[in-house]
């Protein structure tokens, strides 16, 4: 199960962050997810990884562009990121978030700064911070179903056991 609503302090990063920057190619050849969490964003800002636990990651447009590597979203989930919020996502990164059960919200106009509390709810499609609320693009029923299950593994486990 993934909690589709929650709140946490914002960690803010820029626009067009590619998945090479989320987790570099040199760390991909392992099954150990803690390696990816430990080295998340290493080439962007080496001080970011220790700040990710319990945070809401707020990014600029086109988050997660580039390589399809799912290790990027696994790194964020493993590091303890609660949700990712951006005005737009590269579509494979977006799918990957849903598939690993990491809440993802497409939200124009969210204004917040590092450390500020951000509250999100994937079921209502709302994000709020600093006393202001923002609408998000709704998720399809199938996406919500996968996310609620906790990701595609749990979704298929559930379907296969029926």
């Amino acid at each position, binding site marked *: 199960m993934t909690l589709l609503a929650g709140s946490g302090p914002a960690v803010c990063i820029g626009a067009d962050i590619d998945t090479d*920057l989320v987790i570099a*190619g040199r760390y991909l*050849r392992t099954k150990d997810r803690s390696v990816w969490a430990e080295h998340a964003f290493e080439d962007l800002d080496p001080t970011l990884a220790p700040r990710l636990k319990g945070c809401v990651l707020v990014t600029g447009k086109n988050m997660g562009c580039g*390589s*399809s590597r799912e290790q990027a979203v696994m790194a964020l989930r493993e590091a303890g990121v609660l949700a990712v919020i951006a005005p737009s996502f590269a579509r494979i990164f977006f799918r990957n978030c849903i598939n690993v059960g990491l809440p993802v919200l497409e939200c124009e106009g969210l204004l917040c700064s590092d450390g500020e509390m951000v509250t999100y709810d994937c079921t209502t499609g709302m994000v709020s911070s600093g006393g202001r609320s923002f609408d998000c693009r709704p998720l399809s029923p199938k996406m919500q179903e996968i996310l609620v299950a906790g990701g595609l*593994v749990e979704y298929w486990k559930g379907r296969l056991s029926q």
Partner: protein
Amino acid sequence: MGTLSEKILGAQAGSFSDKRIDKAFCHDGTGIQAKVIYDEMGAPGIANPDACYVIYDHIAPANTSQTADLQRELREFAVKSGMHFSDVGGGICHQHMAEGRVLPGEVVIGADSHSCTLGAFGAFATGVGASDMAGIWVSGETWLRVPESIAIYLSGALGKGVEFKDLALSYVAELGMDGATYQTLEFLGESVPSVPMEGRLTLSNMAVEAGAKAGLWYADEITREYLSKYGQSCQAQTPDDTAVYAEEIWIDLHELEPLLAVPHRVDTVKPVSELAGTQLDQVFIGTCTNGRFEDLARAAAILDGKKVAVRTVVVPASQADYLKAVTSGVMATLVAAGCIVGPPGCGPCLGAHMGVLGDGEVGLSTANRNFRNRMGIGASYYLSSPSTAAASAVTGEIADPREVV
């Protein structure tokens, strides 16, 4: 009814549908992740193994014991489960699939972002991550949102020394890195019948660099002739007058000049002439964008009888491309010029092996991505056509191919 995406996916833009997948492929990098996830799902078997391909290209052959162990695990799994398997040296997954394995009208999913390459055949081809691939192994299906489309109308002909890679860089620059996010690019216009399959593959390959989900060409005589060499037949697809496009772009090929994507974004594009004389530490000719036989042949035509002035790595896209380059003499020309030839595959493109750059070094590559640190920590990469790469290899600095072709 509608755009090619709408026709193939059988629904209107904006709607969601569960689609049966005609061809699904992954590589050594995404495949091992997909296997781990597939094992966790606990399925009784692969739903449609004959539609599934596992193709080793990213770190091929293995560079460390750890990589080799992961590759052994996936290799054994792929063979045992009845999926098609192409081992190290066979070539890049997209090129492997392009060699007669993808047909017009098919829905093709690859666990790699450049899976859009196969839109060159009029197939709806797009990339996903490892979990989605595992889900396809389990069920033979996946969900897709039918994308809106952007029409790119091509007119005129390319000038001497200008390539379809320059056209690709041009449209990425015009759209921007996220200008086509969630959308399909459709290549249309009077010049389409004169764009060969290798050019279509290059142009579809770069679609994801503008954020696009797919880059589609309507199957025509070029498609039919290309596929017939692999014993495949196909029917032509015709654009629909009633198709609605979210955006329309017109490009006159005659007006294009050799271009470069400058570090560290694919959409920051400048004319080669503006940057001529920039010192280089390495040139790389290869990848799913420009590692095909025709690319190597154009590079060889420029390097014939000359010596490279800078280390130059050449990696054929597939074993078939490699063999053709060997038997035609293209490879002999490249080796005589002093090029280093790697085994078919991705080569240094993803920064894992075979030509990674050092801190402060400057490279020129025929690849599709020049993200910061991707092909070497602290390095800078320019992206260009094979002709620009070869002309630059001769002088050791960025050079305009129009002066040597």
